[in-house]
């Protein structure tokens, strides 16, 4: 990655302040991770529960550094053809059909099989050349002349084979394509890998990355985040909301509300002109925070107690 403005990544605190301007409030650990990743040219593996801003971190970094963001969503069955490159089969087919006559011309007058093959060899590998190569996100990121931010989202959803395939890319920033050769990065991209921990990633992959774990934020930090995202909200209501969500996270729920959900909830409360958290409004909008009926049923009887502790 060519950083056009070296001063932009001069220290973690500069990064932290700049991210704040983009509305991404981050902890010291996150800023340090981005700083080290830029300086050491190492990928960051971001883990944490869903909705704490893992993907957002890559987006805001791209915006800040003014680099293109190339995103690759992982899923079961993802392979090289979809991640790295593919041959444009249709084009190849079409061209062979169109060139049939030309091929006939070339071959005309050739004596014996040996000579025909000899003439064919003079063509070289036209059908497996750059013109027929379909770039996929990984190759695209390597070939970006000024470097890019590569976001490999939810790596834990991909297969183990794919993880192994990524190793060469992540440590040397190069990949081997059998027909063309090794493609080296023109300028090393900054790589973000995110994982929800649905399965344990391999040690080899972890070894090559900086490991950043983003937990649910402390109430004070979350307060700042919501203030940045929903600035119109009343300060007292915001405090109540943050505390309420914090209390919910202590309960044994199937899925506890993440930051993204608190932001959604804050927007909804604003839209509904709620000035104070009361049982009716919370009960009505609880499905914004909790995504399972089981969880709603656990929380509903506790609402009064929760609100009392928040409102005092």
């Amino acid at each position, binding site marked *: 990655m060519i950083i056009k403005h070296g001063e932009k990544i001069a220290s*973690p605190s500069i990064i932290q302040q700049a991210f704040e301007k983009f509305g991404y409030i981050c902890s*010291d*650990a996150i800023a*340090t*991770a981005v*700083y*080290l990743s830029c*300086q*050491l040219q*190492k990928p*960051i*593996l971001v*883990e944490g529960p869903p909705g704490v801003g893992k993907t957002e971190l890559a987006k805001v970094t791209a915006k800040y550094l003014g680099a293109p963001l190339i995103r690759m969503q992982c899923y*079961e069955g993802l*392979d090289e*053809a979809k991640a790295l490159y593919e041959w444009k*089969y249709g084009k190849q*087919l079409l061209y*062979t*059909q169109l060139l049939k006559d030309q091929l006939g011309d070339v071959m005309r007058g050739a004596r014996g099989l040996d000579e025909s093959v000899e003439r064919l060899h003079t063509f070289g590998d036209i059908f497996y050349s750059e013109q027929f190569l379909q770039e996929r996100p990984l190759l695209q990121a390597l070939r970006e002349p000024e470097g890019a931010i590569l976001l490999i989202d939810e790596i834990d959803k991909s*297969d*183990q*084979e794919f993880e192994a395939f990524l190793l060469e890319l992540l440590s040397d920033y190069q990949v081997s394509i059998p027909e063309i050769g090794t493609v080296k990065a023109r300028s090393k991209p900054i790589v973000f890998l995110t994982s929800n921990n649905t399965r*344990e990633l391999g*040690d080899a992959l*972890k*070894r090559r*990355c*900086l*490991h*950043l*774990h983003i937990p649910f934020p402390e109430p004070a930090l979350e307060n700042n985040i919501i203030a940045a995202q929903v600035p119109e909200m009343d300060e007292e209501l915001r405090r109540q909301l943050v505390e309420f969500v914090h209390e919910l996270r202590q309960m044994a729920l199937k899925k506890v509300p993440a930051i993204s959900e608190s932001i959604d909830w804050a927007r909804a409360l604003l839209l509904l002109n709620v000035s104070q958290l009361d049982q009716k409004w919370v009960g009505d909008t609880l499905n914004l925070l909790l995504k399972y009926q089981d969880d709603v049923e656990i929380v509903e009887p506790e609402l009064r107690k929760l609100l009392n502790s928040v409102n005092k």
Partner: protein
Amino acid sequence: MQKIYADFIHALRQQGLPISPAETLDALRVVELLGPKNREQLKQGMGLVLAKNVNDKLSYEHLFEQFFQFAETVEGDSAESQSVASEPYADQASKADEDGGEAGPSPQSELGQLLMSNRAGATEVAIAAAGDAEDIQNMQLFTQKPLYAFRMMNRMGNEALNQELSELDASNELADRRLAAGLRRAQAALQEQLRDYVEQQYLLYAQAKGEQLRENNLQAIKLTNVDYQYIEQMSRLVRKSAKRLASLHSRRRKTKKRGLLDVRKTIAANAAYDGILFHTRWKSTRIEKPRVMVICDVSGSVSRVARFLLLFLYSLQDVLPRTRSFVFSSDMAEVTDQFESLDIEQALAEVMAKWANQSTSYDKALADFSELALKDVDQKTTVIMLGDARNNNGPGRPDIWQKVYRQAGRVLWLNPEHINSWDSGDSIMASYRPYCSQVHSCNSLRELERILGNLLKHS
């Protein structure tokens, strides 16, 4: 400076964090970039490269605090004493001299001089140096603490100091006596400080080592002999090894895009394209994961092992999702659903309460099995029996086991007793043995892991 970070990483490894040399180098580069000024930042930065999962992060943070508590004072003071030309110390020392009597005698031994110089930083540096010289990182057991303290004291020149003290005592000069008393006080303080240091080093390096030693022993120990107090630790180990098996073998095996070109199918698939080979078809070999049925004896005779076997069985469901589990004392019951729906503690408690610790009857159990599941046993099924074949002198219905053997792909019998005690007393291993593909004596965690690892590998 580097030595301190290397020691820190050594301590982390002792705590069980898997840190590779490459990561060590990364950590040193991080230190270079961030500098030691901002402690919190450094802690986070090094955490990014050294601790790679949430549990490791916790122990990393704990150890960082513990480790750099001492190292900080050593580093800080030695740096200061070098850079500030130690003027304030010189003042203090001269004041101390005045207190101790005007132009009184000064100690001759090296350690005495050090103690009387009144520089706290210097003594700590000396302690750390003595610790290094005695290889304190290699301390293994808590009983070694006094030994290390003694050796370090000697390394610092305690003998010479004692010699000097006795000489001073012999002298009649008041100043000499006073000096001796002062030295004694300083010596006692030093001893105290040294003991603290050794204690701290023990916590850093050796405590985890003791744990590792115990874990290794527990893995090899006979399951029947595991002490009750270690059961907690043991169940953690069982889960750990089941997880290891899971991560080794849970790879999805797919060979769709690779393999041999299937010429016949490729030509057929491309007939529509005027014979131009547009779509390729590959010959692939699909490796089927085994369908496993595990039958676990939980009767009185194997009650001590049964808990672990069940524990392992439970954890195994992560590795082999299509495992059906059965338990029996005399009646057999399928517990697959319990294992799937309940968490481990609840499931085990329920199974143990309902079926365990009754008298064994293989006759009844096998008859039940033939009703419950015999029709589902086919060539792809592996049947594993965990039991001691002690049948209270009943015939044992080997005919049913024979049927199972005929129908199943493979039949394994894991007996928790040693092979010498098979067929002794009421054990009727001999009548089942002909109808097993493999029989193993399996009485430690390590063996269990090895056998099941093989099962998974060759499936």
